[in-house]
């Protein structure tokens, strides 16, 4: 579903009051990131779309239908907006089992769809357990499956993976991509994690001080300095060790830590936690197939 919106809202945060303003147009089937530091209004934006927070003025249109319009006094209640919302803290119903959480999300019970979702997220064996006995990653899967159970027109993910360890995060990112390929639901992801945005999204909308400051595809943002490199990776600096004339950087690319030596007089100094772009020029890559996509998709 296509989203068109233009909203204004006064926000009260720890740093004071500021006004938030955004005009956006998100195409049907896109997977978009709302990117930026905490407290800039990314989550508020998502909540405005879902109807959990009211904008002060403006409009929200989804698939040609007006969900909110301050001029005409239209404000569709959250329950009538067909969104799948994944909360940062999961917000699973503790009194219901995994399966009941999914069933509760459906207006009419669609057993087949529930079974399919449980299968996709590897939850079939856990379906009768309560959320309290599941791990963070498992709970996040339940939250995703529940958000999809009512077959939403939009999937809104509010920093869904921020509480998980790197490996679990990567697995779930793959699952989100798989879901997106499968159903093509327009998806918005709030995130402040660069590699995640890089991996999942084809468009990054950057927020700063209550405004959209950048709206591009992730490659353009990360490869700001034009390079002729053919292979590029976004990495996170884990460790910096000084050794004589060189610094040894331990970098995390995807799930693999890699050690790279850089000159200690390199003009940019790196600190653990920094994001880095690795470009390799003279390179003779060997490509091996790990799994066959065609077979996987042919089965669906």
């Amino acid at each position: 579903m296509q989203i068109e919106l233009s909203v204004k809202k006064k926000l009260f945060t720890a740093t004071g009051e500021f006004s938030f303003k955004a005009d956006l147009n998100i195409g049907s089937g896109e997977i978009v990131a709302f990117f930026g530091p905490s407290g800039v209004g990314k989550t508020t934006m998502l909540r405005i779309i879902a109807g959990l927070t009211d904008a002060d003025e403006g409009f929200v249109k989804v698939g040609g239908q007006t969900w909110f319009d301050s001029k005409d006094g239209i404000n569709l209640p959250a329950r009538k907006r067909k969104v799948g919302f994944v909360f940062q803290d999961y917000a699973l119903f503790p009194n219901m089992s995994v399966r009941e959480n999914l069933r509760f999300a459906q207006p009419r019970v669609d057993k087949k769809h529930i079974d399919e979702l449980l299968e996709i997220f590897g939850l079939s064996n856990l379906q009768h357990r309560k959320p309290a006995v599941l791990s963070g990653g498992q709970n996040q899967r339940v939250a995703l499956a529940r958000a999809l159970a009512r077959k939403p027109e939009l999937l809104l993910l509010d920093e869904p993976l921020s509480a998980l360890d790197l490996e679990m995060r990567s697995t779930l990112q793959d699952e989100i991509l798989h879901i997106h390929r499968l159903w093509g639901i327009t998806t918005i992801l709030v995130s402040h994690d660069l590699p995640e945005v890089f991996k999942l999204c084809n468009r990054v909308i950057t927020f700063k001080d209550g405004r959209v400051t950048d709206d591009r595809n992730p490659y353009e943002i990360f490869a700001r300095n034009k390079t002729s490199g053919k292979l590029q990776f976004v990495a996170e600096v884990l460790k910096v060790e000084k050794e004589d004339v060189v610094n040894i950087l331990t970098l995390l690319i995807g799930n693999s830590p890699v050690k790279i030596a850089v000159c200690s007089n390199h003009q940019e100094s790196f600190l653990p936690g920094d994001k880095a772009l690795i470009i390799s020029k003279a390179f003779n890559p060997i490509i091996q197939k790990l799994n066959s996509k065609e077979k996987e998709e042919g089965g669906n």
Partner: protein
Amino acid sequence: MTLQTLASDYLAHPAIGLTLRVTLLALVLQLLTGLPLGLYLAGKKSPLKSILEIIAALPMIFPPMALGFFLLLFLGKNGVIGHLLLKIFDLKIIFTSWGVLAAVYIVGLPFMVKSVQAARRQMDHSLIEAAATLGKTRGETLLKVILPNIKNGIVAGLLLAFGRSVGEVGISLMLGGNIIGRTETLSLAIYNAVFEGEFMRAAIFSVILSAIAIIVLLVLNAVSKNRISGLSIKDI
């Protein structure tokens, strides 16, 4: 004392029937009124809520004798409410078992309201937002999400309310009149027995009253699946 006299003088004593009838009926009324009131008061603050909150908490902190006296004025046949009830329903409250019911209901209600209010406030608000994004109405959310998740608070409220109601003396004395055979509750029966110097009688009534309180406590606790720690039958 033979078993027969124990049975006829004590176990069949009208005070037991009255206490059971009145406290259990009050418990039902406390649930029916305290639950919605507690849920309402847990919402966003407003002037009306602040006033209601003070009124609801009043019986908890107000001296029972003074409260009993004011209620006597209100509910008596010349009082505002008492006069209306007498005129419309031909219902006499003072010195009848209705008076005792009013007394035990009023003293226990704040515990129910406060427990529900606290449980609702502690509940994760995102659960309600999640239910809304899943297309659920407020009614469905109340039944399937809110009530199951504050169940422990409801049970704790009922326990506290019952505990307070079953031990109530001051206001039931004022409103009920402590009339032997009619408005004498078990608590009052103990008081009367001690007053007359019959310590054995007071001891037996005390044991019966304690037994009732413990049974109700265990039953309520068994109803709540997610038990209050330390109070479960399994723990005993």
